[in-house]
């Protein structure tokens, strides 16, 4: 049996749903989403937005409970370093070099009954 077959699919769906929710939340706050799920060899950027001329990279973490730590706990120093590199790569490849940028984190809590809670922390790195 391939690893893929077991049950990764629901998790992927959960993550994608969380990202949708955050995108909607940010748009409502006047932050424009300009790119999504940008993926290169080194990893993936969830949401790339623009907030008053500042490029904002948002890492979205979705959880159904805090049993294994909060969504923010999942952004380890190692992952933060990768985000930093990905952000610079995106800027270079989209000719945005030199523009101000920041990295935000968004935590999404979803229980099985449709209740959703979003916390957005700015400039976490």
């Amino acid at each position, binding site marked *: 049996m391939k690893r893929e077959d077991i049950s990764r699919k629901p998790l992927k769906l959960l993550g994608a749903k969380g990202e949708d929710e955050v995108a909607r939340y940010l748009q409502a706050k006047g932050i424009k989403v300009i790119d999504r799920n940008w993926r290169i060899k080194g990893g993936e950027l969830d949401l790339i937005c623009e907030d008053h001329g500042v490029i904002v990279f948002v890492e979205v973490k979705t959880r159904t409970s805090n049993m294994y730590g*909060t969504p*923010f*706990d999942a*952004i380890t120093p190692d992952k*933060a370093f990768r985000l930093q590199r990905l952000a610079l790569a995106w800027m270079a490849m989209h000719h945005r070099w030199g523009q101000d940028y920041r990295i935000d*984190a968004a935590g999404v809590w979803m229980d099985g009954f449709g209740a959703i809670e979003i916390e957005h*922390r*700015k*400039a*976490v*790195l």
Partner: protein
Amino acid sequence: MALARIRTLTLVGLEGHLVDIEVDIAEGLPSYTLLGLPDTALTESRDRVRSALVNSGFTWPNRRVIVSLSPAWLPKKGSNFDLPIAIALLVATGEITQESCDEIIFVGELGLDGSLRFVRGVLPTLLAATKEGITQSIIPRANKEEAALVRSIRSVSASSLSGAVHFLVTGEISDEPSVSDTEFFQETHLDLLDVVGQKSARFASEISAIGGHHILFIGPPGTGKTMLAERIPTILPPLSHERALEVSAIHSVAGILGERGALSPLPPFISPHHTTTSPAMVGGGSHVVRPGAVSLAHEGILFIDEAPECAPGVLDSLRQPLESGEVTISRASGSVTYPANFLLVLAANPCPCGKYSGRGRGCTCSSVQIRRYLQKLSGPLLDRIDIRTFVEAPTRTEMASENYGESSAQVRERVIQARAASAERFANDPWLLNSRIPPRELRGRFTAQRQAMSFLHSELDSERLSARGFHKVLRLAWSVADQKGHTIPTLDDAHVAYQLREGMEIL
């Protein structure tokens, strides 16, 4: 409120330094940064504090937490920062108001369940805090007895983090320490009555106690050298309140206050084994520099049995504390000074087999061995020992006698009187005991009666007494005079003093 400041105190030796603990909770990913030269135990506080907070029913701030210990240059050690860090976090998260914690110092280690644990050195910490003008403290329940000794600080003891928080929020004290001195008075069961005979050794001990003269007992095994030494604390004057606090403070740093009643007026008796190492003797340790045997014996007795069996360097490491009354230990983390003003009592067998006394019957040692044995005690150390006395096996009549000799209380009474006399004499001088009279003064203000002086001078002329020995005998003569109630040493006193140095020929 995302900023908080809590105060605590850290010890370098017995000296306290106020430490401000600042906590800032900032936006950002969950992280915990501890600044200000923490050691390993302190770095580990992160996990202890976190578990303790969560298990006490508080929430851990899932944000960027920065804890700064200032002054930043001072290396900070140990686990007694747990409680102040936890309280600072609770102030920063708004569980407690900043005002309720001002003017209070916090000391304590946290268990994972939020319980407050015993820490070393609470007594000296609080003593140092009084000097900084602090009036209130929160300390672990297990430390409440020693905290109660510092009367100028209102110490609230708590058995858990939530207990401490409860007090800060409501001002209610679940349990206030209320202990009286008498509870701590630890009576000893030792008494001079136990010692059979040994008239001259008893007398030597008394003179030693009066003038603070270091003493060496020489005698075969089983004659009572150790018994006598153990009983010297019982004939010393009881410690004053301040002195007892000082002694307890040192014992608190070493973490052995429980073995000795805090504030016990009985001078401490410390007897390191002859295999002890120099660091154990003078103090040491890589992280926290602990007081050694010399400091634990501060204001009391340091007794070394089988002194010639000690490693050569160990006895010589006593020379600095004997000279200055304190000991300075230098390590990578800094140097620390502990007081070490003790009365040195050494015991030795006369030869390796121990039987060379009286007629020397049964002694299997060669004459060279006998001569070398006591020479293991180095010259400079022996110079500092005023009294050398032989302890012979008690005779048959002494063993059978029902006349027990004097009790400790009787002797102590005389010692106290004699010390009062000498204290009066030295009222304007920096020293308090006869053994500390400087040589110059011995030849000037503190000479003996004329006949006594001419006796000592003739001994000097005939080379039976060295110049140094001359001064020692004169100091001893003053102690003998104090014991007999003479205002100035007489010829008799000088004779007695001369005899107290009788070990001279073999050394």
